[in-house]
């Protein structure tokens, strides 16, 4: 019988040995695959056992995202609180249990949870794990100015729209607001309340970086840059404004956006910009062609996702859209260059892209990469990452940028944008009033920068469902933001 007993012993040991192999498979071989699975609740819980880094505004004092500690089933868990509520909700985003994450909370999660691959962070996290202490994430210090952010939000109050302010020389995002805003503290428990439409608009949607609007005359800044860079026109070029533009043999009359009479007669390029004369820009557009204008717009950042640290799906690409899809014309007959030149056609742009246009003109034609995370700071106070200003390329030559700036200054001094004047400071700007197809309901714009001689801020403001023009509705808001940032 002993031989059989030995054999059964072998069977028993093989069975138990298989368990060791199985355990090794799941804990060594398959462990990382398991950790990456979407429905892995343990990973979700473990994320809440990490003390996420705080998020600060540019003043270093205003806390945009903080933690509260709670003990759940004998585990210490950390949940997010947003003391400033809706102040920077669309940039900061949220980190919740039921709705996952949005904004910087999503895209900068690796820093905030200390799971980034930066060597010192890896070391700290490993030590925390070994000691069994709570893992602390890195803090984010943003470029957003809380005071100006608050003023922009109040100025937009009751309207649907967005405002963006950029420091032209660096690309720092100083203001980014989307109205209506929402309270990220409500996402977890009161999602319906947080997302209930206000004045007919959805609060969760980030209009500043993902909202697509017809630029209208604000696009003339791009057209003017293209015209000057093409060599076909100079700031002194003269035009005859008949009050309309012949498109495919039919006259297209000037739009309500322009100031002064319906028909200006003989004007130069500067005056055409000053009074936003569509007929002149229509002629320029036809002279340049649609594709060269769009190629030029690409240098400003059109046709690519606007760079920022927020999640890529929370930013939209500016350009021509056909049936909801971005398109670039294959030949000059697909697009009407005249209407494109004054920002109609099927152009759709984001406020941050228009802010980049204004900032680029302010910065002498050099496009700076916009950024919102100034510094990533480790729990011990040392800087993990510091963002350095980065030039994306030249959109327009320095001389021509100065010419466009001159034109834009005329807009504010005596043209369509006088509402943006600030006493003692030279302001350059451009209005935009885009017809939405519904009578007397416009999307209004104002893009600007100041001071002209030493630009410190470039602003873009857009408002939905306006009965007035960009000069009457958006320019005062842009002025308020500039004042808040300059003074």
């Amino acid at each position, binding site marked *: 019988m002993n031989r059989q007993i030995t054999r*059964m012993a072998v*069977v028993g040991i093989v069975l138990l040995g298989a*368990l060791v192999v199985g355990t090794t498979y*799941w*804990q060594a071989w398959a462990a990382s695959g*398991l950790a990456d699975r979407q429905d892995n609740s343990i*990973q979700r819980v473990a994320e809440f056992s990490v003390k996420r880094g705080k998020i600060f505004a540019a003043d270093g004092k205003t806390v945009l995202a903080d933690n509260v500690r709670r003990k759940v*089933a*004998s585990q210490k868990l950390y949940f997010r609180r947003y003391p400033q509520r809706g102040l920077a909700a669309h940039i900061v985003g949220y980190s919740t249990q039921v709705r996952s994450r949005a904004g910087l909370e999503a895209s900068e999660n690796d820093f905030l949870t200390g799971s980034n691959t930066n060597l010192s962070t890896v070391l700290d996290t490993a030590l925390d794990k070994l000691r069994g202490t709570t893992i602390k994430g890195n803090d984010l210090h943003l470029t957003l100015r809380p005071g100006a952010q608050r003023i922009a939000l109040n100025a937009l109050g009751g309207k649907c729209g967005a405002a963006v302010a950029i420091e032209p020389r660096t690309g720092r995002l100083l203001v980014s607001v989307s109205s209506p805003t929402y309270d990220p503290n409500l996402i977890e428990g009161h999602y319906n309340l947080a997302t209930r439409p206000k004045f007919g608009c959805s609060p969760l949607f980030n209009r500043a970086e993902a909202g697509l609007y017809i630029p209208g005359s604000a696009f003339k800044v791009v057209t003017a840059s293209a015209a000057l860079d093409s060599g076909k026109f100079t700031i002194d070029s003269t035009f005859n404004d008949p009050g309309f533009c012949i498109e495919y043999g039919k006259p297209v009359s000037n739009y309500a956006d322009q100031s002064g009479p319906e028909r200006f007669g003989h004007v130069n390029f500067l005056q055409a910009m000053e009074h936003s004369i569509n007929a002149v820009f229509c002629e320029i557009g036809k002279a340049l062609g649609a594709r060269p204008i769009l190629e030029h717009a690409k240098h400003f950042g059109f046709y690519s996702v606007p760079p920022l640290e927020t999640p890529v799906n929370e930013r939209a690409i500016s350009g021509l859209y056909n049936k909801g899809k971005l398109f670039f014309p294959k030949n000059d007959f697909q697009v009407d260059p005249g209407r494109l030149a004054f920002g109609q056609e099927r152009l759709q742009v984001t406020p941050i892209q228009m802010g980049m246009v204004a900032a680029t003109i302010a910065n002498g034609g050099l496009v700076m990469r916009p950024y919102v995370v100034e510094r990533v700071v480790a729990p011990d106070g040392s800087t993990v990452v510091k963002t350095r200003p980065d030039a994306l390329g030249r959109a327009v030559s320095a001389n021509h940028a100065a010419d466009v700036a001159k034109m834009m200054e005329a807009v504010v001094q005596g043209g369509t944008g006088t509402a943006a004047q600030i006493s003692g400071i030279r302001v350059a700007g451009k209005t935009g009033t885009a017809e939405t197809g519904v009578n007397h309901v416009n999307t209004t714009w104002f893009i600007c920068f100041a001071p002209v001689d030493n630009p410190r801020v470039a602003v873009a403001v857009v408002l939905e469902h306006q009965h007035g023009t960009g000069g009457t509705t958006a320019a005062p808001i842009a002025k308020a933001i500039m004042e808040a940032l300059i003074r």
Partner: protein
Amino acid sequence: MSYRNRELANLFVVAIITGLGFASVYIARQEVVSTGSLSYALFFFALYLAAHAAARVTVPQADPYLLPMAALLTAVGVTEIYRLDPGNAFRQGLWIVVGVAAFAGTLLALRHDYRRLESYKYLFGLTAVGLLFLPALPVIGERINGARLWVHVGGIQFQPGELAKIMLIVFLAGYLREKREVLAQGRLKDFGPLLAIWGAAMLVIVETNDLGSALLYYGIFLAMLYVATARAWYAAAGLALFLGGSALLYHAVPRVQERVSIWIDPWSHAHTSGYQITQSLYSIGNGGFAGKGLGKGVFATTNGHDLIPQLNTDFIYSALAQELGLVGSAALLLVYMLFCLRGFRIALLAQDGFSKLLAVGLTFGFALQTFIIVGGVLRLIPLTGITLPFVSYGGSSVVANFVLLAGLLLVSHRANSVSQISMEGRP
């Protein structure tokens, strides 16, 4: 060193490990080491000293490693159960007291000669079938999670199947010892009583939907039949029958189909019937190489809901694997292996057929039960709910395993005494 002193020394080691385990759970829970952790360890040590004393009196020549290993396994179990729910750990502690009492009682009752059990083999067989049948009775039977395994009398609920398993092994050992020569010849009529009792047991089990036990009993039966008759083709035929029967069962019982489809692809059922196994795998995977540490694993959602149902019974291994990691769970499995190796060694040393068969049955049953539940949790085989010996939460399981331990020690004591006598008797 004598056998029993060796056992005592090993128990000291186990007591230290237990104390450390409880201390680390305490630190993780309360961030302080309280005297509670030490008192639990002391209580355990005292309990096992009592078991040791019983063994010293009744079976001085028995294997000195089995009791310490059982002590270690129960300590690991109670530590983890305590970590999951201190209230349950207290109840489990009480059951271990009952288990140690049953252990001592078995040793005392059978200290002279356990082999007289052989003459009551039919009584054991029939009692086992009766016990298995109890949960199917209307008033006292209770259905939990789709299987009728529990009996409720007064305030106590227990699983009679656990004790029935040992009784059936006693029956098999007795019957096979008596009939092994004739059975080896393959005459069908000799199989009669065997198939009657075994068949009845299997029928009751299948009827009560306890697939894990069905697999376990069938495996024990084949193993003991093979050892008794030395006919490998019996085992082969048995395996073939098992596969055929499984196929039949697969088509006839929807519950079996469900189990198999969860086994093949748990993730396509991740939000329904496959939830438990996928979460359990996540728990195991989360342990990684070194584990999260006792008390540091994640077993609840951010709302405090349990992530894995039946964590302290069927899924205790996934809890342990997360907290102890690959190192700890491999060590735990190693203890099971050593326990089985000692058991098989006892079977080899035993002098008579009944003792050998009894030891093989008890040991192989122990190994197979471990394989069925841990293999199920690891997705090596379809998951069927059954307890992890000595570790899982559950009174009847603990008591039955202590009786099993007593049985092995009795056989071991006799084998060692006889070999000593024969050696001393040599001129």
